[in-house]
């Protein structure tokens, strides 16, 4: 597990329990503290931290499926960005006719419209994920080089098809009335949409943790990430499990795409490939295959991006690379390495 020595000392117990590795958890706190000293004004710092949390949650929603898919079947999908874009376009299509609901001055109506759009985007991207797995990825299981190339090709085709269907111009996505602007508490301003994004991200994270740690399917997924051959030898169909995880991951990417498009307010089919750079950094930092690491990595990357955007705007993206290099020097397999690799 994370710490082999810990596993060994725990062997006296009936079930050896891996100790929770706490050091990585201290990293975001330390980063936030450091930024607090550098920024100076508490209100600015709080605004930036909230923005970072919102961005981190969105990236986590997008990245979590990708890292699980890699952990389970050693498959990395460079075309993951396509599902983000599909989610954004589907939500746009749904929200278009629902304009009266979106513009209505009522939180419930706004939420209903948004929920419907998110639902359609999530299931649409999930269904597409099933097809993508069947057509594009299945023929190249176990061949990394071909996987990278094929999924990249899939991304090109998907982006071009989206442009062919919806037109190649930039699309606008208006925020529902209730989520525009900010809640002001004294000197502090909390942008409403960011609060929503944080809430959704937390719900997804908790749901995922519950599924992984408290259900039978979750047990099988975790076992598969550790040692897929053993799970297969015990008579479980790891393929079917994998297809399910792949579809779920694509669905989450679709949901993340809706959030990201609303956050950015304008988008093209390239929206997916733009986010993917951050997503890759996040899953590398977290340790390929680890959901907890992915969550932590997303928050770290988003914090770094938001703080540096304020402190030194010119090097904002380069800062995530520096963060990645620093973490890889400390732990070459990422924050929470997965035992198999």
């Amino acid at each position: 597990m994370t710490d082999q020595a810990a596993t060994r000392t725990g062997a006296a117990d009936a079930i050896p329990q891996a100790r929770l590795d706490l050091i990585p958890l201290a990293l975001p706190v330390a980063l936030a503290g450091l930024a607090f000293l550098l920024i100076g004004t508490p209100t600015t710092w709080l605004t930036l931290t909230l923005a970072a949390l919102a961005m981190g949650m969105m990236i986590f929603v997008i990245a979590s499926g990708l890292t699980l898919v890699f952990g389970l079947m050693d498959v990395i999908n460079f075309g993951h960005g396509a599902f983000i874009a599909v989610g954004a376009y589907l939500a746009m299509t749904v929200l278009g006719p629902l304009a009266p609901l979106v513009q209505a001055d009522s939180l419930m109506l706004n939420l209903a419209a948004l929920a419907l759009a998110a639902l359609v985007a999530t299931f649409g991207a999930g269904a597409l994920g099933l097809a993508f797995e069947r057509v594009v990825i299945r023929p190249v299981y176990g061949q990394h080089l071909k996987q990278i190339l094929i999924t990249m090709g899939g991304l090109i085709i998907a982006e071009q098809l989206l442009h062919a269907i919806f037109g190649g111009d930039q699309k606008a996505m208006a925020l529902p009335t209730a989520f525009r602007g900010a809640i002001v508490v004294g000197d502090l301003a909390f942008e409403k949409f960011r609060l929503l994004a944080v809430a959704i991200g937390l719900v997804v994270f908790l749901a995922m943790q519950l599924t992984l740690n408290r259900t039978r399917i979750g047990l099988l997924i975790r076992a598969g990430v550790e040692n897929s051959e053993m799970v297969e030898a015990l008579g479980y169909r790891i393929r079917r499990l994998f297809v399910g995880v792949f579809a779920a991951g694509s669905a989450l990417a679709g949901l993340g795409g809706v959030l990201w498009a609303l956050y950015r307010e304008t988008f093209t089919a390239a929206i997916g490939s733009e986010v993917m750079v951050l997503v890759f950094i996040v899953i590398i930092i977290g340790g390929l295959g680890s959901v907890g690491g992915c969550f932590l990595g997303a928050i770290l990357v988003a914090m770094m991006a938001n703080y540096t955007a304020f402190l030194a705007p010119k090097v904002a993206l380069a800062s995530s690379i520096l963060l990645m290099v620093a973490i890889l020097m400390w732990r070459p397999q990422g924050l929470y390495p997965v035992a198999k690799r």
Partner: protein
Amino acid sequence: MIRALLSDDPPKSRLLAALLVLILAGLAAAPFVFPGAAALNTAAKICIFIVLVASYDILLGYTGIVSFAHTMFFGIGGYGVGLSLYFLGPGWPVVALGIVVALVIGVVLALAVGLVSLRVKAIFFAMITLAVASAFMILTTQLSEFTGGEDGRTFRVPELLRPTTRLFEEPFLGTAITGRVLAYYLVFLSAVALFLLALRLVNSCFGRVLQAIRENEMRAEALGYRVVYFRTMASCLSAALAVMAGAMSALWLRYTGPETTLSFAIMLDVLLMVVIGGTGTLYGAVIGATLFILAQNYLQKLMAMAAAATEGIPLLPRLLHPDRWLLLLGVLFVLSIYFFPTGIAGKLAGRGRGPAA
């Protein structure tokens, strides 16, 4: 003589050889056979991309690693020459200085990225290069006082290469020998020289080790070859060749900007060229680059006609819209990975086994 020039690795079939000779002859005679600035531009672009794609094939086809940072090195070459000409004024020593500085930066960067990420899996390298390349691009556009930002830099090339220069009073074979024609031949001859150098490289003992690593990494390591060392070397050499291609591009265009050298679209183009042309054989790079750039320039016109012809049918005209040409090539790309893993060159050479694994 020819065998020695080709490093004892001639094209494997007559058809392939004939095609290559045709391309070579076409490029060599381009200024006289295909008049017009647009045609010459296409020919120069083909020369530049042959070098770029061949250098990428050393990584992808011969060593079996996927990098998404290849355009970064292309850009370093372009910016190296471009910025030194911009800041120091036109002159051949300045060009040489720019190339040397760009080579040093490019190789050091390739070394750093390689040492951080080549120890582990191919996937890791692919993701890290993707991240590094996009950071480099953003950094380049952000440092606008130095690099010109999104707009890039337009600069003056040495006097001899300018369009206003006339070598002879009389036109030769119906074409005026301007500095533009000279610049084209500079690009063409550099491309030939660099291509032969790359051919020499992959047919050396070093190149054989790379292929061994591609086929079976564990076995190569067991035989005593340090895989990390060879992979990093391959990545550095390929980066150096890409830097040279970038320098050629800057000299030809008299302009360097993020769109023409650094953008991810160019990375995808290179990927398409190398796979469609054929990985694991440098001749594939020639075929891929030529075909792709011709398609880029002329397929769009064809598609416009097709779109007009299919008007009235739902969706089809939109799929055939000239802006969607990348869609057709993307489909071709995926199909060629499935069905012709060796690409066009591999198919023509009649080799059964694909290098990609």
